[in-house]
């Protein structure tokens, strides 16, 4: 069985809480005084591991939005792909090969850097000395990878599929972000249709509630990362 939550995180909220502290009365006797103080309290949030039903709903939503995009006059990705192939705009086999090599090298460097970090025989200075050149090489590769992916993704920016995908990410945020209160969890945007949940999101954004805005931003970021295949462990790192 799947775990219920894909990821859990906390966001601190400044709340008024009752605090009891020891004190002395006028006669010098020990007493306990309870007063309301403002404190930062961690609030728990979860990202739901989608059930099969939720995944089905997401597939339907995406497909409906692709058709909607086509009706709106957006081109399809497959059409653009063929057009770019004909015009030679897409990366060549050599470009693809270089990108794949960069990717493998970057992963290897990540592993090497982690090994250095975990090596108990090395002092902090030695670790820094050994990892510095690797870090610089790693950063260079990351830039190349980012540029390549960014360029290719931008080719398909104005397609029905891209629009549907952006909406799907929002759909996931509205369906998977859960808040915990008194040990029970419920969807931050309540039940109902995509439009109804979207209205609640808009209300949060319009309210200027800094705490909830932070929760939505953080939840959205995490859902986006998890959807793009980044593991829970990588996010923690």
């Amino acid at each position: 069985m799947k775990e219920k939550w894909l990821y859990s995180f906390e966001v601190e909220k400044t709340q008024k809480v009752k605090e009891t502290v020891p004190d002395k009365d006028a006669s010098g006797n020990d007493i306990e005084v309870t007063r309301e103080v403002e404190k930062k309290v961690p609030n728990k949030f979860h990202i739901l591991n989608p059930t099969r039903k939720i995944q089905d709903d997401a597939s339907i939503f995406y497909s409906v939005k692709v058709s909607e995009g086509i009706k709106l006059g957006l081109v399809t990705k497959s059409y653009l792909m063929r057009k770019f192939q004909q015009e030679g705009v897409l990366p060549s086999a050599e470009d693809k090969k270089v990108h794949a090599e960069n990717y493998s090298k970057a992963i290897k460097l990540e592993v090497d850097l982690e090994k250095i970090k975990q090596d108990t025989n090395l002092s902090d200075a030695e670790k820094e000395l050994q990892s510095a050149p690797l870090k610089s090489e790693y950063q260079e590769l990351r830039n190349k990878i980012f540029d390549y992916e960014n360029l290719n993704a931008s080719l398909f920016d104005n397609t029905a599929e891209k629009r549907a995908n952006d909406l799907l990410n929002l759909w996931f945020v509205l369906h998977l972000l859960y808040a915990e209160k008194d040990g029970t969890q419920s969807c931050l945007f309540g039940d109902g249709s995509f439009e109804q949940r979207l209205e609640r999101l808009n209300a949060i954004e319009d309210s200027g509630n800094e705490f909830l805005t932070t929760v939505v931003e953080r939840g959205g970021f995490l859902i986006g990362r998890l959807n793009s295949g980044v593991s829970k462990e990588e996010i923690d790192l």
Partner: protein
Amino acid sequence: MSDADNKVNYLKKLYKEIVLGFSVSEYSGKPIFIKHFSELDNGEQEACRIKYEEVAANKGLQTREDKMNLLLKEGYWSMEKETEIEKIKKEISDLELIRRNLVIKRQILQNKQKVSEATSKLNAILKEKEEIFGFCLEDFVGKKINEYTIFNSFFKDKALQNKLFSEEEFDVLTELELGQLVNCLNNFYVNFSHSQIKRICACPFFPSLYNLSGDNAYYFYGKHVVDLTILQVNMFSQGKYFKALVESRGQQGLPPNDVMEDPDKMIEWFEAESETPKFTADGVSYVGATKEELRKMAGNNNAISVLDYAAKKGNSMTTKDFIEMHGI
């Protein structure tokens, strides 16, 4: 134990499962029970299909037809491509039909090559179509029906009263767990394919049991026809067919003992009985056929090359001789 005995023992196990109406498998180290569906269960499945179609339609998911209309209107798909798909499908089907009548190895190979080329072409267009059409109502319904079948196939007990999973549990199965169940079901369907049912009916023990039922399914299974599983119906029908074939031989009776003991040999015998290829024309020739292939076609040793025939005629053949050679 002989090879035939091993086959029969294995088929006896399958026979038992068909009669009981369930099969036993294993999941997570525990025994699980696979229900054999009846026509009533299939009816339930159809009812679900309608329900899922409504669910998807209410959410705005387009049917293939609607999507096709949209894509045609917007110019992302064309009727020419649809015609092309149908044309290639027809071409493949025609080629396969032709192959059945071919005996010359070279021609068979050429035919296979043509089928392979046409199939590649068809797959390329279908792949393109799949990419363009995306996820449609029919895909969703198909997926849900598969899940429905999996959900309703597995039980915790042999009385088939307690499903292996509750709906909530089933909804949160991982892909790996679902994959294990699909594998389990696939193995089950392979075990109970039509050819296996034929093999069961061709086992020596089967006719003895069948003949006692007097062609009455109620006497055979002790159940009314509406309560029979599809496998039970298929096995009974196959048994009846084989019995009729044996009876049609009249006085000639049964095949030799060594054939009767081996279900595969028995099937060959049954098939020969039902098809019996008969070559009535003595004078037929095929251009490009080897002598071996001609012999195979003739079904006997009567194949003769033109040179041999000419030698018989003193190495000089008239038009009349040619006509004679072809038996015309």
